[in-house]
């Protein structure tokens, strides 16, 4: 990046696109309109690929999907007013799940700001609480710095979405090109100094606690993936031979087929993962935030556990559960340091506590409480879990899976074996229905050689299905597995369990209307309807063999199927509701009262 000798005069729009190129943006997602028009002109001459979506929400979610799988910030560019408000949902989604994303919105000319001009809205005001930072630039000169700051803030510390709002006259105005140096960016943000190194004394204390624990559980969250720490996580787990749970945001951060992996904890986590956390004496929390879907009733969560909490965001320390050892830092750095300290302690003669009794207890639970469902009888509707198992078994290596929100999301997290990081893309914190299809398009744009399956429900799919057009026309062939049970499944399940089976406004009748196969074909995709178990495998095989068009398989699934296990909202994790076929064994999950031996040991 050599600076031209003579000062170069270019427009704000040219500066914007050049800034994006300097930030190594190779693909972005957007939709043009009035105020952002000037930026779309120099974009025509740029090597940056622009994916034209059909709704601005799709641009935002696609940018998120792109960021999820690539680790690079996703970029969405839209115009002012309604386009900016349509971007609010993806911004909030990215904020909740700490996804690096940069949004660029057009704004009415500076002179018109505040006058209720056509397509004006207070974008910066509206998005203030759903971005890590946002900025309204007032002149062309400010654009390169605003873009550099936006990328810097989005990708460092705890990642998150940023937004740059650019009035039309700042895009058309001229400026002297200057690309801010690292130093200039640093100096311009005196209040932003994320801490990536953990405190050495705390790291030593963590290592000491880990070696002293008889019932350690590693509670791995999405921060592992953000920090690219999957490898060191594995090293730590194997060093201490402890168990790992991977949260909804961390599926794939530790391989499901690894003997130390207990799978997903939380409201719909498997019984072993939930109970192991609940009865642990040490939760080694790495990039996780004690979300209410994980803890259940906070006061009753893991009552005997000491807490090591590694998080890059200091505000997460003590927000929900007070840690015994708080460590503010980058997960990869801190885990590496913890490993080093543990090795030092072991070499110095410290012996790791005996975890064998705990391990046999955990494997006992695993044997008694596998994930389970009842197979469908011939002629009955499909079981959603069966469809997901079949999709998983037949998926090419490296397949990326996206999902929406609800039962299909939980089934996918429960039944898909995630063995590689960055293969699972979903909306965790915000729970955004309609996420999966645009996110899959974004993931495909980032990883064109990989198979991308969007697993969706009939409710979710109808929220953003229009993006099938985008997939077709932008030649981003994805695959959609639509689990159509005619209902808003998860809401229906809650009404079944907690509202006396009074089903209010959850029947979507989507086996009747719309006709999903015709809908898919009308948008240039291949539509396949699957109604019986023996058709499932061949349909998936067919979809996997088609790589030049998007394929939508509609599976007709059983609405009466529920997601189990389940911790009802607000209940303790000790009161988990097992699958009906396992409820006779529930006693095996109850904690054994402290023996005299344990008491004595504690007193030591």
């Amino acid at each position, binding site marked *: 990046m050599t600076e031209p000798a003579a000062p170069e005069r270019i427009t704000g729009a040219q500066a914007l696109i050049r800034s994006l190129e300097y930030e190594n943006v190779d693909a972005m997602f957007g939709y043009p309109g009035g105020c952002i028009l000037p930026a779309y002109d120099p974009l025509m001459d740029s090597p940056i690929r622009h994916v034209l979506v059909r709704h601005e929400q799709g641009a935002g979610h696609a940018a998120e999907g792109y960021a999820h799988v690539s680790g690079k910030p996703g970029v969405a560019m839209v115009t002012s007013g309604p386009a900016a408000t349509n971007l609010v949902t993806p911004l909030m989604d990215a904020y909740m799940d700490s996804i690096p994303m940069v949004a660029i919105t057009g704004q009415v000319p500076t002179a018109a700001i505040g006058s209720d001009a056509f397509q004006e809205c207070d974008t910066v005001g509206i998005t203030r*609480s759903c971005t*890590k930072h946002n900025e*309204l630039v007032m002149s062309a000169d400010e654009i390169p710095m605003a873009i550099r700051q936006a990328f810097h803030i989005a990708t460092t510390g705890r990642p998150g979405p940023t937004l740059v709002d650019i009035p039309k006259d700042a895009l058309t105005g001229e400026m002297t090109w200057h690309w801010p140096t690292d130093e200039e960016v640093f100096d311009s943000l005196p*209040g932003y100094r994320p801490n990536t190194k953990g405190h050495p004394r705390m790291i030593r204390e963590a290592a000491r606690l880990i070696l002293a624990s008889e019932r350690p559980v590693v509670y791995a969250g999405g921060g592992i993936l953000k920090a690219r720490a999957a490898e060191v996580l594995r090293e730590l787990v194997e060093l201490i031979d402890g168990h790992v749970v991977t949260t909804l945001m961390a599926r794939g951060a530790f391989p499901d087929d690894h003997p130390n992996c207990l799978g997903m904890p939380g409201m719909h986590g498997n019984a072993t993962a939930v109970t192991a956390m609940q009865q642990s004496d040490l939760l080694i929390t790495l990039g996780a935030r004690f979300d209410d879907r994980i803890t259940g009733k906070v006061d009753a969560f893991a009552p005997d556990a000491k807490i090591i909490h590694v998080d890059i965001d200091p*505000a997460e*320390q003590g927000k929900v559960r007070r840690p015994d050892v708080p460590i503010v830092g980058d997960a990869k750095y801190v885990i590496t340091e913890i490993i080093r300290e543990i090795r030092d302690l072991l070499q110095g003669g410290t012996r790791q506590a005996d975890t064998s009794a705990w391990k046999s207890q955990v494997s006992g639970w695993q044997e008694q409480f596998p994930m389970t469902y009842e197979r469908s009888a011939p002629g009955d509707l499909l079981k959603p879990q069966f469809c997901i198992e079949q999709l998983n078994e037949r998926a090419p290596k490296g397949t990326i899976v996206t999902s929406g929100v609800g039962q299909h999301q939980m089934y996918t997290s429960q039944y898909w074996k995630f063995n590689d990081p960055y293969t699972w893309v979903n909306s965790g914190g915000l729970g955004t229905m309609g996420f999966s299809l645009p996110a899959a398009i974004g993931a495909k744009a980032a990883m064109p050689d990989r198979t991308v399956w969007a697993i969706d429900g009939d409710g979710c799919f109808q929220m953003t299905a229009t993006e099938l057009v985008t997939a077709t026309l932008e030649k981003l062939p994805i695959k959609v597995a639509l689990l159509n049970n005619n209902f808003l499944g998860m809401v229906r399940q809650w009404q079944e369990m907690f509202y006396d089976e009074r089903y209010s406004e959850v029947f979507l009748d989507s086996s009747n209307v719309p006709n999903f196969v015709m809908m898919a074909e009308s948008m240039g995709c291949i539509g396949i309807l699957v109604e019986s178990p023996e058709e499932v495998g061949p349909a998936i095989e067919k979809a996997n063999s088609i790589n030049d068009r998007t394929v939508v398989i509609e599976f007709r699934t059983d609405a009466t199927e529920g997601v189990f296990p389940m911790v009802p909202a607000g209940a303790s994790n000790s009161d988990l509701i097992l699958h009906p076929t396992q409820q006779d064994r529930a006693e095996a999950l109850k904690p054994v009262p402290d023996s005299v031996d344990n008491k004595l040991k504690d007193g030591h």
Partner: protein
Amino acid sequence: MPRTRDYPGARSANTYAEGMNHHILSVLVQNRPGVLARVAGLFARRGYNIFSLAVAPAEVEGRSRITIVVDLDSAPLEQITKQLFKLIDVIKISELDPELSVERELLIATIKSDATQRSEVVSLVDIFEGKIIAVSEAVITVSLEGHPNKLNDFEDLLGEYGIVELQRTGRVALPKLDRGSRLRAVN
């Protein structure tokens, strides 16, 4: 004639942070458009209560200092400061324990004081070392600077004459100097 309004029962809304479990945050921010909205928005969104808030440019150019009195019954101080510090424009936060800080506030008020009351009001202002800013036939405008508790007392006593209008600035605060470096405490 100005519209008059009485504040009966003396100690009305002005019991002002005395009984409240409060803490003072002195927040140094980049002086940029929207920074106050960011701070106020954060408090609203996280459900923290602000008791008072004062903003003005700080000693360094391009910086402002926001003095916020927070209600600690609404949230733990640690969470409030950590969340505040996540705002990109926030540069430094000093927590000022009321015990370890000097607090000041300014009050101006227009009081009913016809000829029969005027001397009493004037002597009250004298006792509190306040100032008389303006006088008319029926009312008098006074000001008082001092510790917020002193202002509370003053306000209570003024209430007996009838307050027409009253405005307080919200408190500002700085840490008390260490014993060694403190030249002299000026009250």
